[in-house]
């Protein structure tokens, strides 16, 4: 049975991944990466994987974004 809502979610997921890769700037790429993580969390909750959805939400959207932003701020200090 073809679930159209889930198909749209997967299209959002793949386009977020493609956007995170194709976009030029570092900061925008990291923000699109957290959008990718949030959409991945929705996909997991649709697939009845509750534990993995929580972990992906906290680690993907929360933690990795914090690390990426910190690394970018450290890697842009001199050129400011």
């Amino acid at each position, binding site marked *: 049975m073809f679930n159209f809502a*889930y198909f749209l979610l997967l299209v959002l997921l793949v386009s977020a991944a*493609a956007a995170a*890769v194709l976009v030029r700037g570092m900061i925008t790429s990291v923000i699109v990466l957290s959008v990718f993580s949030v959409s991945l969390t929705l996909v997991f909750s649709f697939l009845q994987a509750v534990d993995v959805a929580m*972990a992906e939400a906290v680690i993907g959207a929360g933690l*990795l974004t914090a690390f990426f932003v910190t690394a970018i701020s450290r890697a842009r200090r001199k050129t400011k």
Partner: protein
Amino acid sequence: MIREMSFVAAISVFCIGLYCVLTDRNLIKICVGLSIMESSIVLLLVAIAYREGGLAPVFSAEIETYVDPVPHALALTAIVIGAGVTAVALGLSVLIYRHFGTLNIDKIWRSLG
């Protein structure tokens, strides 16, 4: 049909991540590609666990069919390992920036001479 859609999505996200890792010139963008590649495998593991009509693997009396809990445990471990490797990758990128003053790999290879 849901499983096959998820497999197609997992493979395409894996190839997008691999494309970014192989062709991008910016160190931080390579770490983004790495993180996307790791997440695609987590999606593959969770898609493998899905059963038609199965519910979340938390036991309660009236549910009969559950989703397979083992790939969820593997997926959890894979997410945390991916986060650890990404943290080390970011640490390396900051260290490379301190030595070479740039995050662009072509400039780094050129200055290595």
